[in-house]
């Protein structure tokens, strides 16, 4: 299992090139903290009826932040629904994320990464999209790659196996990263597959697969960078299993205490990704209490501001749902659009 920092933030692997620049590591830390701050706020908003069902990424922040940090701006991110950290790193705004989770499609109209895919709710159905995107890059001869993040449960879905196999056949520049957080709602990893590791799912497709400590953001970024480098060199796709743990409920509609012991959760807290990186930075003399407080303050200010902006955003007009159905509104839909507007006006 690839690892750079151990639970206490001590160096146990070889430090990748990028991590020799403190700023790079500090940026990663900032991203983890911002993600967790967004997470807390989202849950608060949901609990008070101001956000829809929300999927927390508590304890899994390092997975998509590490992956996104390894990407180039013009690569394409194809996320599942728990990769807030990665989306933020890619340039999706906090407000856009709030809009999405608040049930507003405009949250998917990213001002930043225009080619990134929106969150995918049907589990395991997006890997084929990542293959298509990567195939487009290969056909156009562009040195770009797609990065698809999916869950451990998603690896059981046929679409994932089909996509991985096609990626292998066509040797497309795609990287598949598993957020292996030990649970698929109430189904534990052991009941999801008899495979010892999920990285070995790559063997079926004849592509490389490896595990990485998903709580070690430096390792995740390093491993993803290697995979992306291979992809760009035309050496094909690869699969990475980032092993971590879902410290939160599945979503705000879930009550994990129904199916797993708090004790198990507590056991995994010491391994969570923020503390170890903070310890590492502190030991290296790049971090201290003051900086920590400043960062927390900065993050919560940004999140609070975004939440305000989100809450101040008026809902879309009824017509919007019709106006984006097709490039050109068909006659039959134009009629329905009128009806909808009339009904919305309370008349009928």
């Amino acid at each position, binding site marked *: 299992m690839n690892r750079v920092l151990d639970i206490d933030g001590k160096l146990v692997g070889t430090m990748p090139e990028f991590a020799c620049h403190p700023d790079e590591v500090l940026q990663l830390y900032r991203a983890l903290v911002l993600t967790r701050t967004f997470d807390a706020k989202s849950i608060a908003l949901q609990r008070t009826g101001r956000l829809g*069902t929300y999927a927390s990424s508590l304890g899994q922040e390092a997975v998509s932040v590490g992956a996104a940090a390894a990407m180039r701006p013009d690569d394409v991110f194809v996320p599942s629904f728990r990769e807030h950290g990665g989306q933020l790193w890619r340039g999706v705004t906090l407000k856009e994320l709030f809009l999405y989770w608040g*049930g507003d499609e405009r949250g998917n109209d990213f001002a930043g990464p225009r080619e990134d895919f929106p969150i995918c709710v049907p589990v395991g159905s997006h890997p084929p999209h990542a293959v298509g995107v990567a195939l487009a890059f290969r056909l156009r001869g562009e040195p770009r790659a797609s990065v698809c993040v999916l869950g451990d449960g998603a690896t059981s879905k*046929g679409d994932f196996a089909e996509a991985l196999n096609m990626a292998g056949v066509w040797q497309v520049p795609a990287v598949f990263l598993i957020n292996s957080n030990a649970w698929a709602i109430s189904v534990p990893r052991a009941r999801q597959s008899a495979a010892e590791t999920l990285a070995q799912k790559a063997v079926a497709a004849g592509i490389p697969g490896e595990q990485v400590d998903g709580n070690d953001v430096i390792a995740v970024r390093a491993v993803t960078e290697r995979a992306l480098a291979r992809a760009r060199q035309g050496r094909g796709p690869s699969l990475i299993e980032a092993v971590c743990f879902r410290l939160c409920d599945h979503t705000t509609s879930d009550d994990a205490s129904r199916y797993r012991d708090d004790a198990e959760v507590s056991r995994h807290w010491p391994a969570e990704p923020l503390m170890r990186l903070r310890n590492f930075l502190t030991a290296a003399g790049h971090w201290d209490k003051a900086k920590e407080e400043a960062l927390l303050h900065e993050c919560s200010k940004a999140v609070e501001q975004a939440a305000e902006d989100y809450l101040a955003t008026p809902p879309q007009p009824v017509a919007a749902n019709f106006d984006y*159905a097709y490039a050109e509104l068909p006659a039959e839909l134009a009629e329905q659009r009128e009806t909808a507007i009339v009904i919305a006006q309370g008349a009928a």
Partner: protein
Amino acid sequence: MSELSLVQAVNAALKRAMSEDAAVIILGEDVGIDGGVFRATEGLFKQFGEQRVLDTPLAEASIAGVSIGLAAQGFRPVAEIQFTGFAYSCIDQMLNHASRLRSRTRGRLTCPMVLRSPAGGGIKAPEHHSESPEAMFAHIPGIKAVMPSSPARAYGLLLSAIRDPDPVVFLEPTRLYRAARGEVADDGAGMPLGRCVTLRQGREVTIVSWGAMIKEALEAAEQLAADNIEAEVIDVATLKPLDTATILESVGRTGRLVIVYEAPMSCGFGAEIAARVAGRAITSLLAPIERVTGYDTMMPYLRTEAHYMPNTVAIVAAARRSMAYA
């Protein structure tokens, strides 16, 4: 008799079916210890054990496919698809295999399975959690498609679906899971499949619907009654095979028909009802057949989903249009 919510009625029916027939087993995502995300299978894992309540890996196509193998072997699998938005992956297995096993083998192998799934919108859920695909399943020969609209019917129809010798797709109106409560006698009595249920008698206009929209249909009838318009309300209950007779008989009396459904209008199940009436009761029609439906767009995200759902106002308006027609 005890008052149960619709999801509790589903749970009671499952428990009853498992108690009376060892061949009945449940499989699906999170149906075990968790009891299903809506608690439809709550307590069953504890009572019947992991041999009869199986949590599956995340793979809808195979949840259906494995059920086919179990059914061919004499089990009566009741598979849960967590939300109908994820049941589209089952269509290939249901259409190409489950529905045909009997006919393909000339009766040698059969497929007594039930595919259960919460359907419909209005619960402010994420995308894909508010789908109404009933018409797609009702188009599949060899399948039966059922959609209850009350705790009592959920209980009785699910028991019959499980006891049925052929594959049944059983769609449960998510919006009514907790909202609908009513007296249910847990007496193991099934309700016959293939029969519409007339919920309200009326001489002037027939309102036909199914699933969660029955709520709005009944509310509309109330409002119409206030204006002395007597609406008859029919719950289709079983979409396939359809009890055409009950609908034709009603329209024969009222001469006016309003069909209400939440799925996209085009090719929704209501189109089949309209086609049958237009094919057999044209002379009794005193007005155009009205359809109050979802639009031919995707279900909007939760913030604006209310605009998508047919509502009482629209149903009342349609009934009035029908009445006003001359």
